[in-house]
């Protein structure tokens, strides 16, 4: 048995008029939390749909948990939260979940207890209330998201795929989602999620893959990715808004590779020939009062911008993300 949860080899997917995914190869290790990052229209959703065998690749090979993704037996071992959320609006929540559980091969007699357990866990049941008996369209959006999330996890899959799981979540529910992902990882399950919010990816992922315009830009363990780009990034925190002389230094192209809007906290990329120690001395002599001056490994956000570039974001096509 392969130790990869997912292996994608030279996969291509074309749509009329454009190529959504071109020659993509990646490998997701078992037990990892894996981030699929990219701007809108980069091909994330298309890639995920191909992993889920909802659409077929035009070329290449995808293996999920060691078997080809087209193998029907694999679906019961995978949980999926699509980017486009939705449930049968007129159905009762409990019935929807039992339906989804049955589609994943959970025995009917086990389902009611299991559904109740999950509803309680997501505060949809208990303290005298039971949203399981309500119709889906009677629930708030946040609650519906939770129900959908339960639907993806109810059958306790080995592999969980979440497409943009944070979109539309309020901070409380977003935290609940992060906790659940952390718990899934301690249980040894593999979690893949796509996002364009780099902070989430950085905090949660063991490994990431950044794709843009259907192509892989980079991939690997988060620590490796950040280490490989840890050449010239400085994090600054000023005590107060810095004087103009300081700001002028921060705009000097011979020191700073990429100017950033001035603020109290900044993350700067130094010019390749610039020296961080020299910059610190110059800043202090220009009258800056610093709370922090740190040579850091760049955030995923910065790496993402560097690699994908603003143009990659702007020209990203909507639709088959």
């Amino acid at each position: 048995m392969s130790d990869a949860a997912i292996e994608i080899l030279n996969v291509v997917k074309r749509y009329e008029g454009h190529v959504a995914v071109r020659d993509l190869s990646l490998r997701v290790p078992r037990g990892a939390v894996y981030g699929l990052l990219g701007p809108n229209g980069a091909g994330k959703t298309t890639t995920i749909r191909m992993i889920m065998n909802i659409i077929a690749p035009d070329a290449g090979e995808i293996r999920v948990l060691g078997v080809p993704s087209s193998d029907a037996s694999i679906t019961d071992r995978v949980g999926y939260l699509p980017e486009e959320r939705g449930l049968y609006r007129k159905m009762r929540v409990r019935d929807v979940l039992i339906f989804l559980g049955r589609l994943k091969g959970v025995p009917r007699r086990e389902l009611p207890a299991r559904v109740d357990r999950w509803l309680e866990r997501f505060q949809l049941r208990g303290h005298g209330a039971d949203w399981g008996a309500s119709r889906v369209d009677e629930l708030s959006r946040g609650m519906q998201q939770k129900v959908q999330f339960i639907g993806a996890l109810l059958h306790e899959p080995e592999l969980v795929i979440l497409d943009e799981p944070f979109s539309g979540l309020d901070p409380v529910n977003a935290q609940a989602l992060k906790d659940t992902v952390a718990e899934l990882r301690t249980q040894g399950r593999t979690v893949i999620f796509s996002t364009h919010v780099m902070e989430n990816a950085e905090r949660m992922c063991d490994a990431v893959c950044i794709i843009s315009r259907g192509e892989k830009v980079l991939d690997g363990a988060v620590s490796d990715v950040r280490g490989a780009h840890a050449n010239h990034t400085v994090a600054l925190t000023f005590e107060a808004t810095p004087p103009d002389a300081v700001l002028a230094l921060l705009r000097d192209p011979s020191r700073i590779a990429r100017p950033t809007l001035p603020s109290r906290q900044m993350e700067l990329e130094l010019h390749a020939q610039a020296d961080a120690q020299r910059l610190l001395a110059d800043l202090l002599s220009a009258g800056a009062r610093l709370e922090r001056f740190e040579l850091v490994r760049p955030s995923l956000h910065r790496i993402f911008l560097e690699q994908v570039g603003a143009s990659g974001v702007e020209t990203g096509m909507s639709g088959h993300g």
Partner: protein
Amino acid sequence: MAESKLGTIVRREYLERVRSKWFLIATLLAPVFLVFMLFLPTIMEQRERRSESGTIRIVDATSDSVGALIATSLRGGVAGDTARAQWVPVANDSARQSAERAAIQAVLDASIVGYLMIDASAIASGRLRYAGRNTTALLTMQQLEGAITRAALTRELEREGIGSGRSGTLAAMRVRLETERLTTRGRGGSGRVSVLFAIGVAVTLYLTIFMHGSNVMRGVLEEKQTRVAEVVLSSVPSDTLLFGKVLGIGAVGFTQLIIWTVMSTALMAIRAPLLARFGMQVDAFALPDVTFALAAVILLSFLLGFLFYAALFAGVGALVSTEQDAQQAQMPVVLLLVLSLAMVQGVVTNPEGSLATIMTLLPMSSPIVLPLRLSLAPVPTSETIASLVILLASSILATLFASRLYRTGVLMYGKRATLREAWRWMQRR
């Protein structure tokens, strides 16, 4: 415990619909409608009879009192209801004119409903004049025409030397055609009833196929609009989802048909006592005996016809994203169905003609026309089999195409596919 994924989908589609209020309402209202249709003719006839109670004045300028004969006839005999008709003989033209003026006034006063002007030349030419408030009451007008014809004929026969009693009998002679349907299995029901029954079957099939077929479209559309399709598709192939939907909704229609059959059988059994209870006349109304083979063909026609149209409707559902688009895009499919129903008249008039034969073989109309013809007249077994086989093959073909459209279309949100795109989706393997 080995309920398959297909079974899970069929079960959901079936239970969610059968449990809904609308299923209950539709299933119960249809028989109410049926009862209404069964009782309506009887009720209408009785109402009509009651509404005839107006006086008709006959202004008679003939020399041989034809008007008196008409009046007697309208009264229903010599000892009949004198309020039904008045006879006003006039001797000359001026008397005739003043009598007409008086009659017009009487109509406006509502003391009579109308008046009839007769004179010898009018009878000879066969063109008489009636004026009144009830000229649209067809039954009354028919009765009046009959009475005039009989009266004129009686006088004519008398002039030819036939005795007055005899000429009255001759003029009143009438023929009534009793029709009876002969089948190879012997006599069964009256011709009129079997036509009614056949049309009832055709309309019921049309309605159920239409209703549940478009339910398939709405189901596909709902899954697209709510985006729930993608969740389901991560667990089952699109074919399974489509077939499960079609089978589940088909089972709903089947259930409805069976409930209706049971209900109408029960209703037919209690119809006579019920009518009698309300003091209504009961005419003999025997259902043509429905053979097992006919019942089987009716159910099979529903199943295959539903399958055929459900596939077409599902294809439409896969192409569109909004209810409005769906209304437009379903037109060709709806037209096929409506056209088939429109042909029913032609088939009833001539169940063995070439139109009937063609309609029996075309898959778009055969699920409606085949049971219709079978309940009207014998259909060659070879033709029945050919019809069912063609329908089955077309259903399978339609389902194959629909599942291809569905596979691509179900994940296309927000825009309506063009015909060219649809064609490309169908070719994609």
